[in-house]
């Protein structure tokens, strides 16, 4: 089998060289148990039916694929479609994975759920499904992120979750994951770690991808219905990479469809000023293969293997490693990775708000910045689908400074 047709990951959780399982021994048997439980759930039509029911009736799937007529006109190039994940309950794609994993946790008999969160969207979605299923919920969040995403902290507490501030390291997403892993290693027998991106040890990158693959599955059918053909480009932002892989996955075999992941270019190309792990062509350096938080992937780090600090105006993209499947897609040239700066993302958010009447999350605004750069140079018959992964209500305090 060639790389293009082989299904990844392999049995050891590898996407090419990336992925795997690098955790303290205490977590190994629980990860094996999780993998078995997930495989069993996937083979169970009852589980699929239950998940589909929740996705439809609680989360609000399917989401529209909206033709952005005024944005298309404004940019004067390719036809732009928005996959409206921002319309889902809780305001972002994150709920897809949270419903899947929480139903799995119930199947496994776990009564307590923990999660990390950066922008707070995954934390809110986790708190939401925990409330719906009657599970105890603890969310770890860096104190810097708690400051910049205050609204989401209140939402989680409103939903009955305990939000624990993490004051170590850069006080952002990476540090929240460290603390969640410490909780999990301590309470692993009673607790499911509801990891929120395509990161961490096997089987998380595969499982989280599968729970988000509905995004691309719907988008593919919707664009075929609307345009009678496949799109030319898929564009999505990449922090850990869950919304991007969710859009890309069902199109991987469609070789005519190009894919672009947009990372956080932050304030510049120096290490510490950005969170671009794969955008080499744009001059971002510092990411080398390495191991962080359970997986082997591209990691921003110092020469002697200490993990670097990162910066992004968007808390959800502010992370030094990238999902292992994205590292593999980049290495094969199947997807291309670029970066958008803080300023470009803010500008893009304002543009979408004023032209289409949609305030996007700052994360999604990075993907939009790439469209603003690229669409005017494209032909009018070309088609772009962008994953509008979340809405910007949570970012209003930051966006208000630019009004």
């Amino acid at each position, binding site marked *: 089998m060639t790389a293009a047709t082989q299904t990844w990951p392999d049995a050891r959780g590898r996407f090419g060289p990336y992925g795997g399982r690098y955790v303290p021994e205490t977590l190994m*048997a629980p990860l094996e148990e999780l993998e078995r439980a997930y495989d069993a759930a996937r083979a169970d039509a009852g589980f699929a039916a239950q998940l589909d029911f929740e996705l439809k009736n609680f989360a609000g799937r399917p989401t529209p694929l909206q033709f952005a007529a005024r944005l298309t006109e404004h940019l004067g190039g390719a036809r732009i479609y928005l996959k409206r994940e921002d319309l889902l309950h809780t305001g972002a794609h994150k709920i897809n994975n949270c419903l899947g994993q929480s139903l799995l946790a119930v199947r496994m008999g776990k009564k307590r759920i923990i999660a990390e969160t950066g922008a707070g969207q995954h934390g809110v979605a986790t708190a939401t499904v925990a409330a719906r299923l009657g599970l105890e919920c603890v969310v770890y969040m860096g104190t810097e992120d708690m400051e910049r995403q205050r609204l989401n902290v209140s939402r989680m507490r409103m939903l009955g979750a305990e939000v624990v501030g993490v004051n170590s390291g850069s006080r952002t997403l990476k540090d929240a994951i460290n603390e969640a892993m*410490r909780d999990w290693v301590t309470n692993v027998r009673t607790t499911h770690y509801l990891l929120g991106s395509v990161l961490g040890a096997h089987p998380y990158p595969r499982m989280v991808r599968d729970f988000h693959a509905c995004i691309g599955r719907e988008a593919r059918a919707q664009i075929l219905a609307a345009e009678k053909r496949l799109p030319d480009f898929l564009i999505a932002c990449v922090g850990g990479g869950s919304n991007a892989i969710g859009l890309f996955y069902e199109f991987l075999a469609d070789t005519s469809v190009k894919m672009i992941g947009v990372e956080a270019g932050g304030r510049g190309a120096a290490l510490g000023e950005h969170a671009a792990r794969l955008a080499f062509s744009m001059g971002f350096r510092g990411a080398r293969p390495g*191991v962080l*938080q359970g997986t082997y992937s591209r990691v921003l780090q110092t020469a*002697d293997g200490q993990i670097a600090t990162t910066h992004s105006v968007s808390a959800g993209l502010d992370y030094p490693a990238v999902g292992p499947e994205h590292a593999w897609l980049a290495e094969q040239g199947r997807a291309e990775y670029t970066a958008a700066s803080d300023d470009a993302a803010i500008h893009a958010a304002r543009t979408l708000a004023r032209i289409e009447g949609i305030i996007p999350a700052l994360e999604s605004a990075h993907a939009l910045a790439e469209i603003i750069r690229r669409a005017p140079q494209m032909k009018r018959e070309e088609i772009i689908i962008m994953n509008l992964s979340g809405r910007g209500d949570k970012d209003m305090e930051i966006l208000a400074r630019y009004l």
Partner: protein
Amino acid sequence: MNPTRITKRFEELRRAGELGLVAYITAGDPTLDASERIAMALADAGADVIELGVPFSDPVADGPVIQRASERALRSGTTLAGVIESVKRLRAKTQVPLLLFSYYNPVLQMGLKKFADAAAQAGADGALITDITPEEAGEYRGAMRARGLDTVFLAAPTSTDARLKMIAETSTGFLYVISRTGVTGTKDSLAEELPALTRRVRAATSLPIAVGFGVSLPEHVSLLGGLADAAVVGSALVAEIEKAHSAEAAATAVAAKARTLKEAARKGISRREATR
């Protein structure tokens, strides 16, 4: 492979009927000069194996005490290469068994072969990598074995018997048993499930077993006399370093603590003999 200093020391302990004391400190906490003085004091106080922790920016297996030690060591510019240099200086002064204790990424960035070469040349006896398990350790073990270095792996309360067997097959020197699910750090009492765990580990291996995580008091060490071949003490020593106002004071305090624990270890073994 010729036996390392670690294997020889456990052999001596067995012949003497004595429980060993494995002492952990973070190298470079607060400076490499200080941690070398503390390591020498530990060797003089009777530590049987010294674990030198390599500081890492994201120590997911560690509690707050060792997290803070890592931060102090990184602030003073400690790198893996610097820790290996420190081993070389220590080895010129003492024959105490030295085990490097690291997260995987710094070792991976140095290169597995280069790490093994440098560690062997400096006089280290082996390594324990917290976040690598036998499944992912093939290349690492090959590099270490080629240089005659021990690879110590962890066994946990959650490890199945099948996993314990694999851990036993890939470990050399000794096997490190994590006493409870959780991160490093002190607790008032040892886990109730510990005797059942050490029995399962004994059934899987003939290697010496050392028990760590939550071992801080002489009474913990005494209890371990009946269960294990060595007690690992880390956070309790690192907490003394954190409290001390100078390297000299830290060395004195850590040595005093180690002596008390070693005393309990010596008594603990008679308890083991008495219960046999």
